[in-house]
């Protein structure tokens, strides 16, 4: 039997929803324990006083990336059946720019706004309300502008494909970038104290 387990027929639909709940609980728990339900802590990333966002995000990416890489190597996980977000080059660069500006204006991202709200923070509730308005407005408008919304589609495009390197080489490259970033983050935090 090869994972993903849902594809392998291990779980019924209702059991998979229970798993979604359990995974969500663990996700929210990890974000809260890291301090990422706190807008002031998140914004330390952008004032360069507290680089927790970078450290948490990149250690999570590296852990999941190495785990899935080695499970696939061992033949226990079929990577081709794990969801990879489609690439739309222009929409994702432009969307990322809009998102990043909104993140720093609002102080919390979508997932962390849910944690903030769940821990009693009213700014988290305000971000959630704004998000709902934003996705509703953009969800109505953007599909009517396909020249922008559907521009530069590349389907499932991964770094190894785009750079013409092996999957393992791309994994190694991301690990090196992350470790370099961790050293830089520590140095920046020291210099700001």
């Amino acid at each position, binding site marked *: 039997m090869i*994972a993903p387990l849902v*594809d392998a027929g291990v779980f019924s639909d209702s059991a998979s*929803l229970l798993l*979604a709940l359990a*995974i*969500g*609980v*663990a*996700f929210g728990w*990890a*974000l809260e324990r890291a*301090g990422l339900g706190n*807008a*002031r802590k998140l914004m330390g*990333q952008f004032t360069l006083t507290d680089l*927790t966002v970078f*450290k948490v*995000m990149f250690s999570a*990416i590296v*852990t*999941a*990336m190495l*785990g899935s890489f080695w*499970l696939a190597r061992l033949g226990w996980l079929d*990577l081709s059946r794990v*969801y990879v*977000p*489609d690439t739309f*080059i222009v929409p994702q660069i432009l*969307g*990322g720019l*809009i*998102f*990043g*500006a*909104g*993140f720093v204006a*609002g*102080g919390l*991202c*979508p*997932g*962390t706004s849910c944690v*903030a709200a769940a*821990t*009693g*923070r*009213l*700014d988290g509730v305000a*971000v959630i309300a*704004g*998000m*709902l*308005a934003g*996705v*509703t407005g953009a*969800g109505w408008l953007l599909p009517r502008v396909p020249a922008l919304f559907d521009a530069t589609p590349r389907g499932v*495009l991964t770094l190894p*494909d785009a750079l013409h390197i092996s999957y393992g080489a*791309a994994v190694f490259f991301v690990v090196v970038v992350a470790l370099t970033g961790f050293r830089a983050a520590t140095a920046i935090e020291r210099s700001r104290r």
Partner: protein
Amino acid sequence: MSAPKPYANPYLAGAGLGLVLLAAFVVAGRGLGASGAFIRVSEHLRGGGGPWFDWIVVEIIGVVAGGGLSAWLAGRWRVAVDRGADRSASGRLAAAAGGGALMGAGAVLARGCTSGLGLTGGAMLSVGSWLFIAAAFAAGYATMPIVRRAWR
């Protein structure tokens, strides 16, 4: 009530978060997400069909439960507005709503947010995810000087 416990070591918390993401890959063949749940709720509010409680909406209900429980057990649960020292609560809430609306628009255009594109697509080495991460951080640093006074 006793003083709130300090936050966890960021690398340990990050590795834990990474194991949760890996579990989602192994169990469900999909990663974590957040903006997708907002889009589903928005579709329902506009009268869209389909089940209310699909994977992503149930996952976000879990995030709320897990985040709230963790904060409560650590003595960090309190009603407050997290803001800079010289910013009014109402000003902070208005900025939060405005920033949320911008993020919503950005997430629809990019087809994801820091969770679905950043964590999930980042770990799966999606090119679009890494472009999104780079653009979001760049715009964050470009925006901070404009709003910096609000975060002192």
